[in-house]
Each structure stands twice: as structure tokens, then as C-alpha cells.
């Protein structure tokens, strides 16, 4: 069914249909972790890592197990378990393999389980009938878009912090307004 250019899939996921700003996936970490540019980058890398692996594994589970056996109704339960265990596994692995990387990514990993961008991506890959290569590119695009807007918002928030923001707006409300303006800019891709 889907026979679209890989380039298009990547750019759609990263820009036109940005996972965070246009599709509202991964809002919690977007607001929670976007206080510092450095931590945003860390979160972005962790998401890239988990998104890519989770997409590939869930795609294969769907393609070779759930769909052939007519067990589509177990999709949600399977995918969330895969993502949760994957996050655990990655955390253990990174901790052993590269303590430096663990230091950088470690605290973000548990947050990813409830990052709906990962789950949303996994579901979209199979419902939109992407093949394995398209799935991979879709994951890379989604993660790139996620990291990009996360870092952008963090940059804005770092600046906002040193300015005198009206008290009721301070913190999350002003971050949401900034996100709204970013979303306006991203909507410009389709105009």
C-alpha cells in the first residue's frame, strides 16, 4: 500500500507532521525535559535509540507473529510490553557497556516508557503499512523531529528564565505559549 519516497517519510515525520508540535506525541517529556539544552539533547539521543529499536522489533512482531496469527487485538499489550522491557534492557546494557553514556542518558530512559511518541510511532508503522526500511526511516525522522523541537524549546526556555515573565505565566504556561509559536512556524511547511 504505502510506496512513498523515503525522503518524504523522513521529512514528513520530522517537519510537516512533526511528532510533537503537529501530532502531539511526546508532550510530557517535551515539557518536562526542555528546561536545559544539554538535557534536551540527552533525551533526544535516548529517544532516537529507543524509537529505532522499538520500531524494528514491534514491526517484526506484528509482521511475523501477530498479523499472521490473527492476534491483532493483542497489539497494544504486546507493543507496550516490548517498549517497557526494551527501555529496561537498554538501561542495563548502557550502564554496563558505557558508563559515560549511561550518565548522559540514564535518567531519561525510564521516562521513555510513558512517552507516547514511541508507542504512537510503533502503532503508526503497522497501521500505515510501512515496510521495514520505511519503518526505520520513519523512526529516524520522528526522533530527529522530536530532538529538534525539544532543543528549540529548551533554548527558548533558557532565555525566558532570565527574563521577567508575569507570574501567572511563569513555568509551564509560557513554555506552552512558546511551543504554540513554534507550532505555528512548523505549520508553515504545508502552507
Amino acid at each position, binding site marked *: *500500500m*504505502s*510506496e*512513498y*519516497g523515503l*525522503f*518524504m*517519510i523522513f521529512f*514528513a*515525520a520530522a517537519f*510537516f*507532521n512533526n511528532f510533537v508540535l*503537529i501530532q502531539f506525541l511526546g508532550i510530557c517529556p517535551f515539557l518536562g525535559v526542555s528546561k536545559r539544552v544539554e538535557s534536551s539533547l540527552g533525551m533526544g539521543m535516548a529517544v532516537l535509540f529507543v524509537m529505532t529499536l522499538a520500531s524494528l522489533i514491534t514491526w517484526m512482531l506484528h509482521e511475523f507473529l501477530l498479523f499472521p496469527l490473527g492476534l491483532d*487485538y*493483542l497489539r497494544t*499489550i504486546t507493543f507496550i510490553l516490548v517498549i517497557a522491557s526494551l527501555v529496561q534492557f537498554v538501561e542495563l546494557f548502557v550502564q554496563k557497556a558505557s558508563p559515560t553514556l549511561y550518565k548522559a542518558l540514564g535518567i531519561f530512559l525510564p521516562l521513555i516508557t510513558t512517552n507516547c511518541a514511541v508507542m504512537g510511532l510503533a502503532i*503508526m508503522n503497522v497501521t*500505515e*503499512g*510501512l515496510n521495514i526500511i*520505511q519503518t526505520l526511516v*520513519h523512526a529516524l525522522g520522528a526522533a530527529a523531529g522530536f530532538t529538534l523541537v525539544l532543543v528549540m524549546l529548551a533554548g527558548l526556555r533558557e532565555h525566558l528564565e532570565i527574563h521577567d515573565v508575569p507570574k501567572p505565566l511563569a513555568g509551564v504556561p509560557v513554555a506552552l505559549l512558546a511551543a504554540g509559536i513554534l507550532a505555528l512556524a512548523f*505549520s508553515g511547511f*504545508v*502552507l
Partner: protein
Amino acid sequence: MKAALRMIFVLGLIAAVAGGALAGVNAWTAPIIEENTATRLQETLASVLDADEFELQEDTEQTLWHGYRNGELMGYVVRLRVGSYSPAGIDTLVGLDTEGNVQGVFIFGHSETPGLGDKIEEKWFLEQFIGLGIGDDIARGVDVDGITGATVSANAVMTAVRNSVRFVGEYAGLIDEPGIINLADVPDGTYTGTARGFIDNIVVEVTIEDGKLVSVVVIEENETASYAGPVYDQLPQAMVDEQKIDVDIVSGSTGTSQGLINAVKDALAQFATGDIEIDQLAGGIYRGEALGYDGKIVVEAEIVDGQLVAVTVLEHNDTPGIGGVAFETMIERLLAAQTLDVDAVSGATHSSQGLLDALKDAFRGAPRIEISRMEDGTYFGEAESFGGLLKLKAVVADGQLVSVEVLDHSDTPSYANPAFEEMIEDLLAAQTLDVDLVSGATISSQGLLDALKAALGSAPRLDLSQVPDGTYTGRADSFGGELELEVTVADGVITDITVVSHSDTPDYANPAFEELAETVVDEQDIYVDAVSGATISSRGWLSALEEALRQAVTD
């Protein structure tokens, strides 16, 4: 250890109960969901085509339903997916009536940006497609308006409708098969062609050398690079490699692929077999009309033996001084060139083009045969009938059909012979070919009529059976000069043909003459093929032979 076992047991139990509960509810809801989906599909199909029963067709290139009302075919519904911003593209349903006109468009599914891309679902946008059909462009700014802020999504829908119309057009046989282009028949050269791609026109240059396609170069285009790139990389190469134009398209870039293929076809269209070739036309009188400079031009053209022998302008409104001269000049050029591909008369381009268009129109129709205008003589013709080839002989004298004789046929005699008799009687009485077929033997009657048309569409021929016994001398121009021969007829049979004198190169001519004489005596037919390698000598010889026998008949 005990704790670990308990952990596994509890988690396993929860998973088992969860799985069981899900399987149970799934068994309950799945049939309901399936039925709802089917009902919704029928309702959706009915929203784009006024029918109450839809039947999914198998083995079609695109998903296709036939729509029926009271058992009568009302039209078709095509479902296809076109690429746009979102990875899954836009899923469309287009309903078309049996003539290929759009009855309704429905967006089956899309994941375009909410608020912008989803404007493609708006009524005003989808309704503007209704009534468009095979002859329409279905393109933004031509017959459909786009959507500000959703250009790409709207264009994708236009492509979907355009492709659906084309698909049904081909599926239902509403679009004529485009002429087949035989690359070997294309003269060397570089040709330019244009066709619409996904977004805009694609212009290509096609180079042919020694009847082979050597290059296809895109010289102008405005396609999306990411989609079109692979098309430009793969298709021209595939065309050159496979030496054909209809190569496999690049999946995902159907619009651009099809555009490129059509542009190449356009470049070579003048050599397509679909074009009019005068020497392939059946004999007879053709009448056609087209628009000239000022109103209608009606022409009549006569074809005899695959030759254009006369063109008459019956009616026109063009400026007499300019138009009249232009017609005369054009007719001269046409008769000389024996093709419609002649230059227009400068200063009277419209009249010239009008004349050509009228001729094209004429030659697309069936010829008419007017017995009263036929030259006196004996005509021979053959056509396919019920059991095989039917051959006949017809005699025209003083503009009247005086006799028709079936020489050979393979139809069942008990049916065919009475039918032939009846047909011939009718034909002679009516003095026109527009007679009713004999019921019960329609195919045989049609065969006779076709053979008669073929006969009267060719030049009259000599009837050997009318040649008295004797030896006759004939002369004609040949390759090196005049050729003279003697032919001997005994008991209505040609027994001997001898060349008395000729000025052709003996090495080539003599063997050819011997071969021709042998064939004519064997087949008792003086209209045989020329000997290859000595064509002009053969023609001279055959002309001299006909001349000799013709004298015998008239003497």
C-alpha cells in the same frame, strides 16, 4: 527462588487472564465490527455512485467495484491511494458512470495535517469533480480549483480522480487503445514530445538511430525531486535497454512515470500505427468534415488500390481567393505525396489545416462505394467469410453493376449458395452496396458484401476468360527502355509468354522474366507480385502483358 517463582506465576496468570478476556471480547466484537465495516463500505460506495448493489471485481489493477441498480450496471467505483505528505497518502473512492464521468468523490482515509490538509474533505472541493470525464484535464486551474494552504493534498486528490477516470476508461474500453509505435519504423532523428506529469508538463527529447531508441532526455519538468528522481534515473534507461516505451513504472511515482512515458509516446506519435496510412485504406469514397478558417469544410476523397486518386472540396466558407487556391495547392501536394503529412500552404494555414483535418475525419470513417461513378471493367475482390476466404468477380458497364460472380468460397453450400444468389439479385436491382443481409446466413452475406467492397475499391482488372484464343503483342516502358512481349492464349488459358525485345540489364532481367512467365502460366493470374531485386523490370513486363491482353479483349 520461591519469590521468583511467585513473580513469574503471578505475572503469567495476569497475562493469561488478560489474553483470555481480550480473546473473548474480540470474538464478540469482531463480527459486529466486520459487519459495520461492510455496511459502511456499501453506504460509502452508494454516496459516490447512484446504485444499490456493489460487486468487488477480482484481479483488477486497482480496487474496483461494479455498481448495479435492479441488476443494471450503473457504473464503477475505483479506490486508489495517492502519495502526499503523510506516509500512508490519501485513500480515495471515485464513482464513475458507464461513460466514465465522475459521479462522486469520497476521501476514504487520510492523515493529512488537521485543519489544513483535511480541507480536501470539504464538499465544495469534492463536488467540483462531478461531471468531469475522459475528455477533461482534471487539473488545478483548468477545470478544478485547488485549496489555498493545502496545495499538495488537493493536487493529490486531483491526481487520484484523474487516474481513476483513466483507469475506468481503459477498463471499460472507453479510451481507444493508443496506436502502437514500432520503433523500427521510426526514421532516424530527435523528436520532442510533451505530456502531463504529476505536477506539470514533462518535455522529452527522444533520439532514434537505425530504428533503435538510443536516448530519452528530459529537457523540461517541474516534478518533486524526491519522487521524480528515481523515475528519471530508471525509466529512460529501461526504455533503451528493453527497446520499448511501455516499461514498468516506478512504484510510488506513478504520476511522473506515466507522464514521462506519455511524453515519449507523444514525441513518436506521428509514427504510431493508429495514424492514417493511405496505402492501408480500403478502396472507396470517403467523406469528412472539419473546421476551416471560417466554418465547415466538407471534403470527399477517393481511394483506389491504396492510392489517393481524387480529393474534392464539396463545401467551404473560406475566403474564395485565398482558400480556393490553398485547397488546389494542398490537393496537388496530397496526391503527389500520398500521405496526409504535407506542409500547409503559407498564407492559408487555417484553410490548409482544415482540409487536412477534414480528410483525417473522412478516413476515420468507412468508405462509400458509388457504382455509378465506377470505371467500366471487371473487378476482383476477396474477403473473410464464414468458412474462409470468399473470392468474387464483379462487372461494371456504363456505371451499372451488371454481374457479380462468386469464384470461390468455403462456406456451407446449402446455406451460402441461396444467400449469395439472393444477395446478388438484390445488389443488381439496387445498384448500391447498401442492401439488407440475408437472414439465416448473415455471415456469408456479409462476406460477399465485403468482398464486393474490396473488389470495387480496387482498380478494374482484366478478365482472362474473355480473351479469345490467339497470340498477342504488348509493349510497355521498363527499366532500360521499351519492352515488348508476346502472349499466347489457347482454350482460354495462357500457355506461353515470350519477351521479344527489351533494354534492361540481361543479368537481372532475364531470370526475372522467366520466373514471372512461369508464375503467370501456373496461376492463370496476370496480377502477380514483382520479383524482388528486379522490381522495375517486373512491373514493365506485367504492364506489357496486361496491355497485350487488353487489346485482345477490345479488338
